[in-house]
């Protein structure tokens, strides 16, 4: 499986010298599909690779630099738009890693801008962003109502001139999910990094990455999320604080699993993994040499799991029925 070859190379960049052309082809396609090519390029910056690979990695490095520049500019624009309210948004995920200069940001592709604001100020924030040029992209009233009632974020907004998406969060998991992270604690512990920018505390950054990967979603893009987590682990100083925060947010088991998976995929692989962990690993490492998901059924199972995580069964049935009637099909 090429995903396995990819993570093997990420673990030991110096093994690049031994790779054959067909292995490179599989690794490059798997890395693109997992949005890890820029990260791979950063890891291999000072490693000897074939000329054809060097050119591809140089392109990826340039793309990642551009994405980070744009992401930080978007963050700057959001701060500017919210400043009159006296509101300092907290950056999440990619933009936060880039703004704080963390290792997870090296070569990382950054898509949307994710920010966190207190729930009781959500309406004001929304109004300010709309006034500053962001617009709705979910025209469907059901979707809009669903977001507002049940999700951890506003329906996505896109800026009309810059064409960039912003997700405004008020917590880090949907309100329907079983764990209930303490959003007020996340905000209270956030740290200022200059330029009017704030990010979550080191421990809460990990908690958010773990919640995002294991308590929400179907694990697509999981390898990238796990790489973030691996990098964040390496940079945290107070490990006991991390346990305390996980307990406070109801994510202790998720944190433990993330630790095992990260060790197994990107680390020494010394931790014992459970049977369930093995299923997660199979899902994470499912890209073949053409960048395809070679385990479609497992993907479908995780898709169903993502919905069960997100809402209780009866609500789920009603939701799926509504979406089906509107023509939505999974996969």
């Amino acid at each position, binding site marked *: 499986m090429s995903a396995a070859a990819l993570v093997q190379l990420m673990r030991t960049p110096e093994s690049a010298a031994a790779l054959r*052309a*067909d292995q*490179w*082809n599989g690794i*490059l*396609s798997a890395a*693109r*599909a997992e949005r890890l090519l820029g990260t791979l390029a950063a890891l291999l910056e000072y490693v000897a690779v*074939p000329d*054809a*690979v060097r*050119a*591809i990695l140089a*392109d990826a490095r*340039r*793309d990642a630099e*551009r994405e980070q520049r744009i992401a930080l500019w978007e963050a700057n624009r959001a701060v500017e738009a919210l400043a009159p309210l006296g509101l300092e948004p907290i950056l999440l995920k990619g933009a936060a890693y880039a703004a704080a200069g963390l290792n997870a940001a090296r070569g990382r592709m950054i898509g949307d801008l994710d920010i966190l604001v207190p729930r009781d100020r959500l309406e004001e924030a929304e109004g300010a962003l709309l006034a500053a040029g962001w617009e709705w992209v979910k025209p469907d009233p059901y979707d809009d109502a669903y977001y507002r009632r049940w999700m951890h974020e506003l329906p996505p907004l896109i800026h009309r001139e810059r064409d960039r998406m912003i997700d405004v969060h008020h917590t880090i998991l949907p309100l329907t999910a079983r764990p209930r992270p303490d959003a007020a604690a996340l905000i209270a512990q956030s740290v200022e990094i200059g330029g009017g920018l704030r990010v979550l505390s080191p421990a809460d950054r990990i908690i958010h990455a773990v919640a995002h990967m294991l308590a929400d979603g179907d694990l697509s893009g999981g390898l990238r999320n796990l790489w973030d987590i691996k990098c964040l682990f390496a940079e945290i100083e107070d490990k006991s604080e991390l346990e305390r925060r996980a307990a406070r947010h109801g994510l202790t088991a998720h944190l433990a699993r993330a630790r095992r998976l990260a060790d197994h995929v990107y680390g020494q692989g010394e931790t014992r993994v459970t049977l369930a962990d093995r299923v997660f690993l199979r899902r994470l490492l499912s890209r073949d040499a*053409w*960048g*395809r998901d070679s385990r479609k059924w497992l993907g479908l199972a995780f898709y169903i799991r993502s919905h069960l995580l997100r809402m209780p069964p009866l609500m789920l049935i009603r939701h799926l029925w509504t979406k089906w009637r509107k023509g939505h099909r999974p996969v």
Partner: protein
Amino acid sequence: MRHSLTLAIGPATFRIGSAWEQPIAQLRALYAAYPQDAAAIADYAVRLEPAGPLRRWWRPSVRIAGDHMLPDAAPMALRHGLLAAEMGMNLQMALGWRRHLLIHASSVEKGGRALVMTGESGSGKSTLAALLGERGWRFMGDEFALLDLADGRVHPFPRLVSLKNAAIGVMRAEVNDATRFGPMMRETPKGDIVHLIPPQDSIARMREPARPALLLFPRYGFARDVRPVGQGEAFMRLTQASTNYVALGEAGFDALHRFVTGVPALAVDYESGAAALDIIDALWGEVA
């Protein structure tokens, strides 16, 4: 994937995989003169996949996928599989290429200097380049001109010429060699399409760039007219004709700026291929 082929066109190498044999066999034959090194490291993978669980066999239908994809691309009939493969490769270039400023333009070369023609679909830029390629010019490409970011030269991307509708008859009358034409694909999303293998010399010299000498904005179906195009207008029109101008940032701006300030630009309206060739001859005489 079950069937596959590695193929180099100009500076780019593609790995094309398919669930069916037919598109790969067609590519292998039509691109026989191009490097096909199965042991090469490819810049991009292109996949021709069944558009649904049964679509490999039942009313076979191709989804174009690969390293770079469009989320909502419409599937195509398998009999248009060759076109799907071409579109897949174009898509990789349009979305992924960063080593040159990529301009949606055709180009031909004579005496080490390049003529670049850009315009919307139907402007005739592709047919004109193919015609010139049979009449003493070196055909460099009918779809993408690759502008060097460091020295401003134009690099060829001489993929198969994609002839549409009336252009098919024009080129059949021009080229007396049936083996250079691919199969007729009728009723594709772009009309009837036949591929034409570029002249041998064009393929043999596909890694040889040329200094741009003239930029034309041809427009087919209008009364003969030639107008100068200002540098500002040429710049703006080329930003729209480029798929990676924004992605390249400052390097893209510099390359385009150098191009429009160094190369004269003209808008050319014409009513027939013969008229266009006349005009080009005259204009080339002035700049060369």
